[in-house]
């Protein structure tokens, strides 16, 4: 199933981008500290951009996190009726995720239509972070839907062996 692999690869690329967004955030904040304390210059946009990077990182990394079993779930009853509950839980998750995605798409559309900005000195258009969040949510919903396909095909619903380092249990 080439399309399934392609979506998995895309999700992983987004997760790497999401991680490097946190690196970028750290770099921005350190630059602000150095410039402020050494040159008495403040980068006024740093906190705002950092917040948006964080927001984007949460949603862009969500699909790969789901695919690799990183999103936490209560497994109390799954152990008793694994097959039926896997379908049921995935369907519930799909419904809620679709609802959330629709809400975030509407928010992004509103920001796009009204041209709303942050109102700060940097005056960043809110459509940018909202669009990243909505896009990440779309991909998350798609991964949940594909999870149903994987279950139907008899494939494992989650990838166990990711290439993110052997001894990092929270990631593997």
């Amino acid at each position, binding site marked *: 199933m080439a399309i399934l692999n392609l979506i998995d690869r895309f999700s992983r690329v987004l997760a*790497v981008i999401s*991680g490097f967004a946190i690196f970028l955030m750290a*770099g921005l904040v350190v630059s602000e500290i150095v410039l402020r304390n050494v040159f008495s210059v403040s980068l006024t946009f740093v906190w705002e951009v950092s*917040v948006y990077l964080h927001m984007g990182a*949460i949603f862009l990394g*969500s699909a790969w996190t789901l695919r690799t079993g990183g999103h936490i*779930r*209560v497994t109390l009853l799954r152990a008793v009726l694994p097959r039926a509950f896997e379908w049921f839980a995935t369907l*519930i998750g799909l419904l809620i995720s679709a609802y959330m995605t629709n809400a975030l798409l509407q928010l992004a559309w509103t920001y796009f239509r009204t041209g709303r900005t942050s109102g700060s000195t940097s005056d960043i258009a809110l459509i940018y972070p909202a669009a990243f969040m909505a896009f990440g949510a779309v991909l998350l919903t798609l991964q949940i839907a594909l999870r149903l396909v994987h279950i139907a095909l008899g494939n494992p619903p989650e990838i166990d062996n990711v290439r993110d380092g052997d001894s990092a249990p929270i990631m593997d």
Partner: protein
Amino acid sequence: MPLPSIVAMISLLAILASGAWVALGLMGVGIFSLEIFRSLPVEKLLAQSIWNGVSSAELLALPLFILMAELLFRSRFIDGLFSALEPWVRRLPGGLLHTNILACAFFALVSGSSAATTSSVGRITINELDGRGYDRRLTIGTLAGAGTLGFLIPPSIVMIVYGVLSQTSVLKLFTAGILPGVLLTLCFMGFIAVLSKLRPSIVPQHTGDNSRIWKERMAGLPSLLPFIVLIGSILGSMYGGIASPTEAASVAVLVTLVLMAMERSLSLRALCDAATGTARTVAMLGLIIAAASFLASAIGFLGMPQAVAAFINSLQLPPLGLIVLLMVVYIILGSFLEGMSIIVMTIPIVLPLVVSAGYDKVWFGVFLILMVELAQISPPVGMNLFVLQGLTRDPLTSVVRAAFPFFIIMLCYVFFLAVFPQVVSFLPGLL
């Protein structure tokens, strides 16, 4: 309690028990309850709550400390932490289980996050203690309990949030957290020591040579150096007036990168792995925080916090009775809600009640932090439980059972602080 609140609680249990993802489950309960009981534009509220929940600048310390932990995990000096602490605790009853507690207390000095503390220390110690034959349940339990020290021992993100919301001095709150944090660490270590005396089978019997223990202790000190440099850079940048607590987290990332480069463990592969690992943890925690933020709004609209406050007021309790009742309420809330949401939701209602009962705001801050710490290990929604489940891949029920004794210790400890509030107010009083 009003019907909408009861339905919300039951539907939360049902959705989470179904095995749905926690973040989506929290959202689902809010959506379901509001669609049934309130005529509101739920989609707009959901989107705005998610936006507000994850757009807080205070939250930025969390991904930065997670990134630092991911980098630390991929460095070699992490191995050194365990081996450096080992000779210091080897002869104590309970042996290396104390490394979990001390490493958490140590890490809490560089991290303001409970989840990041549990995750970072757990990654280092779980496999090591498993391999040496320590009781797995106790290994997980010590991590669950001591991991919560991340909130109490400064710098603490939750304390900053409380300070801002309650208009209390953050410096006083940080200072107030020190003594209770040290005492709680000693309580956990005392419990391990007593338990290992009563049930010697929980720890492997050490047969090593202790004649050179001081040499080993001194030899291990250089391994602690990277952590001392990290702690120094974080506390130094904060108390030196160079950086805010959240900025100090980015300093920690930079210092970790420099230390890794000096150690020659910095590579493109390590950076990519750390980036992906950070993305996974940030996505998991961020989505839960976003969902909890929406659920907090939803139960606010359902009138649950007001119902609780009205109930407490009607009882006309003495001060200690009020605190005991609040403990019960916070435990119930902590079973369903994420800590930050509990604080944000309850401060406007509870703080005036507590202040009028004679307790000061700094004391209540520490009390609230401890109750939030309890929430971190209260099922079904407990962030430290989730982190440990992710680390160990054990069923959540096993993690909950492992954490239970430490939950009880913390509960008794909170009661102790309510009876002797001087333990909290002593150090801030010296400022």
